[in-house]
C-alpha cells in the first residue's frame, strides 16, 4: 500500500467515524436542522416572501396583522419579507468572512507548524500580534472610513479573525509532521509543499473546521453590530440595519426591531451548535 492510500484511508475512516458520532450528538443535530431550515428560507426567499422587501406597500408602522404577520416598518415595508430576504445577506457575509479566515488561518498555521524554525518564529510572532489587536474598533474604523459596502465588511472581518485558526492548525501541523506516514512520504521523494497540502492539511483540518463554523456565527454578529451603528451596506436588506431603523420606534412599534433580532439569534445559535457539536465529536476528551 502506498503512503497516499494509507493517508487517504486514514482520512476516510476518520470521516466515517466522525459522521456517526456527529449524528449522535444532540446539539449538532438540532443545529444542523436549524441550518437546513435557514438555508431553505434563503434559497426560497422569492417564493416565501409575501411582498417585495424594498416596496413601500403598507401604512407606516402597522402592527402585526394577517396581511403583515410581522407588521410594517417606518417606511411601510413588510417586515416579514425583509426578515426573509435578510437571511441571504447574513449567511453570505458570515460564510465568506469565515471562509476567508479559515483559508488564511490554515495556510499560515500549517506553514508555520510544518516548516518550523525561522519560518515558525516569524509567523508565530505575526499570529500573536494580530491576536492582540482589538478587532472590533479596527473593523469599525475601516468600514466607517473606507465605505460600508458588503465586500469591505466581509474582507475586513476575515482579515482580522484568522489567528485563532492559525494557532489550531499550527499545533496540528507540529504533531502531524513527526507521524510515520509523513516520514514515509518524504522517503518516497514527495516535495515538502506537496506533503503539506496532501497530508498535513487534510489530516489536521478538523479543529479548524469547527472553529470556522463558530466564526460564521461571530461574523454574523459583527455585521449586525456594524449595521446597528449605521455602518451597514445601504443597498442591502440586513437584520442589523432593520434593528437600527426600529430602534427609534422601540416603544411605539416594537415589531420593527424585535423580529430581525430573533432571526439573528436563531441563525447564530445554529452555527454555534454545529460548531460545538463538531468540537465535541472531534475532541475525544469531551466525548461522553
Amino acid at each position, binding site marked *: 500500500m502506498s503512503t497516499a492510500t494509507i493517508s487517504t484511508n486514514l482520512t476516510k475512516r476518520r470521516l466515517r467515524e466522525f459522521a456517526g458520532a456527529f449524528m449522535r450528538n444532540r446539539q449538532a443535530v438540532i443545529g444542523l436542522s436549524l441550518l437546513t431550515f435557514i438555508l431553505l428560507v434563503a434559497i426560497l426567499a422569492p417564493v416565501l416572501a409575501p411582498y417585495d422587501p424594498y416596496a413601500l406597500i403598507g401604512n407606516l408602522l402597522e402592527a402585526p396583522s394577517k396581511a403583515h404577520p410581522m407588521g410594517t416598518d417606518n417606511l411601510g415595508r413588510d417586515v416579514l419579507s425583509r426578515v426573509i430576504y435578510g437571511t441571504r445577506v447574513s449567511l453570505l457575509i458570515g460564510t465568506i468572512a469565515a471562509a476567508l479566515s479559515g483559508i488564511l488561518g490554515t495556510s499560515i498555521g500549517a506553514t508555520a507548524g510544518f516548516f518550523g524554525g525561522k519560518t515558525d518564529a516569524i509567523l508565530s510572532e505575526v499570529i500573536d500580534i494580530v491576536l492582540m489587536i*482589538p478587532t472590533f474598533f479596527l473593523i469599525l*474604523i475601516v468600514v466607517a*472610513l*473606507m465605505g460600508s459596502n458588503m465586500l469591505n465588511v466581509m474582507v475586513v472581518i476575515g482579515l482580522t479573525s484568522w489567528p485563532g485558526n492559525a494557532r489550531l492548525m499550527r499545533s496540528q501541523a507540529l504533531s502531524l509532521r513527526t507521524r510515520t506516514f509523513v516520514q514515509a512520504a518524504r522517503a518516497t521523494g514527495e516535495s515538502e509543499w506537496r506533503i503539506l497540502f496532501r497530508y498535513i492539511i487534510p489530516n489536521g483540518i478538523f479543529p479548524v473546521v469547527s472553529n470556522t463554523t463558530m466564526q460564521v456565527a461571530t461574523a454574523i454578529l459583527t455585521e449586525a453590530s456594524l449595521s*446597528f*451603528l449605521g455602518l451597514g451596506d445601504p443597498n442591502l436588506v440586513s437584520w442589523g440595519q432593520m*434593528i437600527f431603523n426600529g430602534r427609534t420606534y422601540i*416603544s411605539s412599534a416594537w415589531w420593527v426591531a424585535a423580529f430581525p*433580532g430573533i432571526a439573528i439569534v436563531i441563525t447564530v445559535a445554529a452555527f454555534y451548535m454545529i460548531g460545538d457539536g463538531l468540537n465535541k465529536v472531534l475532541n475525544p476528551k469531551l466525548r461522553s
Partner: protein
Amino acid sequence: MGRYLGKRSLTGLLTVIVVLVLNFFLIHLAPGDPITILAGMDNPSQELIDITKAKYGLDKPIYVQLWTYIKTLLKGDLGHSIIQARPVSQLIMERLGNTLLLTLTSAVLALVIGTALGIAASRKPGSALDNVLSLIAYVLYSMPGFWLGLMLILLFSSTLRLFPTSGMVDARASYTGIAYVLDVLKHMVLPVGTLTLIGIPGYFRITKASLAQVLKDDYNTLFLAAGMDEKKIFRKYCFRNAILPTITTFGMRLAYVIAGSATVEIVFAWPGMGRLVMSAINTRDYPLLMGVYLVTSVSVAVWMILVDIFYAIADPRIRYS
C-alpha cells in the same frame, strides 16, 4: 519565566506599534477630513481651511505627520482633539470611568452568576436543570447585545416604566450626594443587566467544560474509594482545578473592558467610550480616534500579558521555555 515574560512584552510592544502605524495610515488616508467638516457645508473659506490645516500640521506629507505624532506621544501627550479643541487625554479620561463602571460591574456579576450556574449544571449532567440552563446559555450566547438592550428597554422602561431608557443621570434634576449615586445606579440597571446576561454564557460553558474534564480525573475515584466525602472532594479538589480556565476567561474579558461594550453603550446613550469613538469617526477627529485606539490596544496587550503571567504562576504544569 523571565525570558518568556520578556518575549511576551516584546510582542505586546510590537502589537501597539503595528496598531499605531496601521491606524495612522488608515485614518489619514481615508476620504474626508476634520477641517472640511469643521469649515461647514455652505460657503467654506479656503483661506481658513489652509490656516487650520497648517495649524494641525495636516498640510505636511503623511510620514512627517506620523513622526510628529510619535514624538508628541513619547512625551506622554496624546494631542488635541481638532473638533472639540481639548486635550485628547482629558476627553478619554472623562469617558473612561463611565465605561469602566458599566463593564467592570457586569464582568464581575457575569463571572459570579455564570460560574455558579455552571457548577449547578455540572452536579447532575443531563438533568432537567442542566438542559434548561444549557439552552438558555445558547440563546444568550447568540444574542446581539444591542438587541437584548432594546428588548429590556421595551419591557422594563416602555411597558413597566421601572427604569430610565437612556443616559447616566437625570438631566432635568441636578442631584448631589446620595441622591446622585442612587440616580446613577437606577440608570445602570439596564445596561449592566444587558452586559451581564451577554457575559454569563461564556463562564457557564467554560465552567461546565472544565468541571466535566476534572471530574473524570482518576484521583476522584481514588478519593471516593478511600471513603472521602463526595462534597468535600468537589470543594477541595475539583473546584480548585476547574476554576483556572474561568479565571483566565475573566482576565481575557477584562482586556476588552474599554472596547467591548460600545454598541450597548450606544443603545442606552451611556456617555462612555463607545459614543466617543462614534463621534470621533463621524467627524474624522484624527487625534481623538488615534488616542482612543491607542489606549484600547495598550490595555488589551497589557491584560493579555498579565493573564499569561497569572496562568504560568497558577498552573505548575505550565513551564514556558
